[in-house]
């Protein structure tokens, strides 16, 4: 398995304080590998060092110690970025440009000829869902979600092998999140490698094969997602309505806790290890209605805390 991104003992100190600046460690000996063709999630709560790691990879920051490589070349080699697409967190682009002009500009910087830039720009804007009538409007009129789409378009215009996205879902509405997820899945299906950061575990569960979890600047967990989250399963919650007392008692035998919400509506909390399927079978027989089944898991923060301890 070949690594597309590799960091070794990556460390970054920022000077803080105005009069007597003292180094504060933001990233502490972070090492991970992103395998080719996978979707890799860089997870962690806010302030864990995700953005710092990504900026180090894009050569926007210079490491205090350690090294970072992309495609086996040091990140300080600007030519490496020919093969990388990047969407920064809360992307801001120039107010005076239109979506089309911006993407064409960036295509040109990645070495595309004028003709190619125009053709590719039209293609990626279609792909990321920027409508035709919006393409010539100045970006200052764009909403946050629209800007995120333009950001994705500029990152894809030069057909990169690696796409790096910093918090791609933040600030998006549910439809926007779904669209971004779909694009990431497509990118993986096209054989590209995707590295993205998020502070929401659900995003990772839907997309990633591999994750690194950062907390306080350190990698606290690293590996396949399934390995990391399986032990974190904390049972499930089943909500039903139209249940008579007899059926409720039968289901209650499976549950760790039963709460009556309102006339005939109950919430059953199943213990870890208890499957919800037998409960659902009882419901069907008793003529009750299933409202929802949701797995109960520890929050990402719980996993971080667990990992730190």
């Amino acid at each position: 398995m070949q690594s597309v991104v590799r960091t070794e003992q990556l460390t970054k100190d920022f000077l803080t304080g105005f009069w007597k600046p003292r180094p504060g460690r933001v990233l502490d000996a972070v090492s991970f590998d992103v395998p080719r063709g996978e979707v890799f999630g860089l997870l962690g709560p806010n302030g864990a060092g995700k953005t710092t790691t990504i900026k180090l990879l894009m050569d926007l920051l210079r490491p205090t110690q350690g090294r970072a490589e992309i495609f086996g070349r040091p990140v300080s080699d600007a030519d490496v970025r020919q093969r990388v697409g990047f969407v920064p967190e809360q992307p801001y682009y120039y107010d005076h440009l239109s979506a089309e002009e911006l993407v064409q500009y960036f295509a040109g910087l990645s070495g595309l000829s004028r003709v190619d830039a125009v053709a590719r720009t039209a293609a990626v804007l279609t792909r990321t869902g920027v409508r035709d009538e919006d393409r010539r409007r100045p970006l200052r009129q764009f909403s946050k979600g629209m800007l995120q789409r333009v950001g994705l378009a500029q990152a894809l215009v030069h057909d990169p092998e690696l796409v790096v996205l910093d918090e791609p879902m933040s600030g998006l509405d549910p439809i926007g999140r779904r669209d971004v997820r779909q694009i990431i899945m497509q990118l993986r299906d096209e054989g590209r490698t995707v590295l993205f950061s998020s502070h929401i575990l659900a995003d990772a569960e839907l997309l990633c094969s591999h994750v690194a979890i950062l907390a306080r600047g350190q990698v606290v967990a690293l590996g396949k997602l399934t390995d990391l989250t399986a032990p974190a399963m904390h049972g499930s919650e089943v909500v039903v309505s139209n249940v008579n007392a007899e059926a409720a008692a039968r289901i209650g035998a499976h549950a760790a806790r039963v709460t009556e919400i309102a006339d005939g509506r109950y919430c059953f909390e199943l213990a870890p290890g208890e499957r919800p399927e037998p409960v659902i079978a009882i419901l069907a027989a008793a003529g009750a209605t299933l409202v929802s089944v949701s797995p109960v898991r520890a929050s990402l923060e719980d996993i971080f805390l667990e990992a730190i301890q």
Partner: protein
Amino acid sequence: MSATRVQLVAWHVFKEGARDRVLFTMVGFAVLLFGASLLLGQLTAGQDLKIIKDLGLAVIEVSGVLMSVLIGVGLVAREIDKRSIYGLLARPLRRWEFILGKYVGLLMTLAANVAVMTVALYAVLAWMQWTATPAVRASWEAPALDPAMLVAVVLLMGELAVLTAVALFFSTFSSSALWSTLFSLGVFVAGQFSGQLRELATAVGSRAAGAVGTALGLILPAFGAFDVKSQVVHGLAIPLEFVGMTMAYAALYAAAVLTATIAVFNRRDFQ
């Protein structure tokens, strides 16, 4: 290195300038002022042509200087501040290419604006030429449409080339546009006196003050060295060699400042 990337960055600076309403207003105001100078000319008999030339060249210089500083200080600082620089530097764009592109782009913008103002000034002078009686024309020290005025404009561009480099320098390491503007304008004003500063050593008794003056005179850009307005207006000759050497000075000094700018910018972290 890629000339294409530098050109692209430069072109976008130019494009932004072309869409900037402030610039339009400034150039429009300058052109209006030339028109108004025709009125002022009526008040001061005999000297009208000279006054219009003086005023015209001064207005071109002042607006060029203001544009250079006001745009120059924001050119890099604003990209950092608004984080639009992330998208740019995530391309195979080298940091020095970015700086050079910004610099060339602003110079292009300034050249275009200065050209527009120069054409407007010549238009006003053509009107003077057309309306003047032969007797009035005979009293002029230099012809109304004197091509020597272009020499003053060329040297002004040399001056702006240096000033733009200075503004860009402050733009790379200060995030406060206000301070950068004040510093750049301060350097511009102090640079007007750099010739006198160099001679301070002979003028003042104090050795320390003289040494400080000499050092400042050497470090500060010699903006006073570009000023030939008085010679041009009075029809005095300006040798080609003078223009050549002055522009060589501008090129070398601007190169020095740009080198320093790139060195600073190369080390910068974008937090």
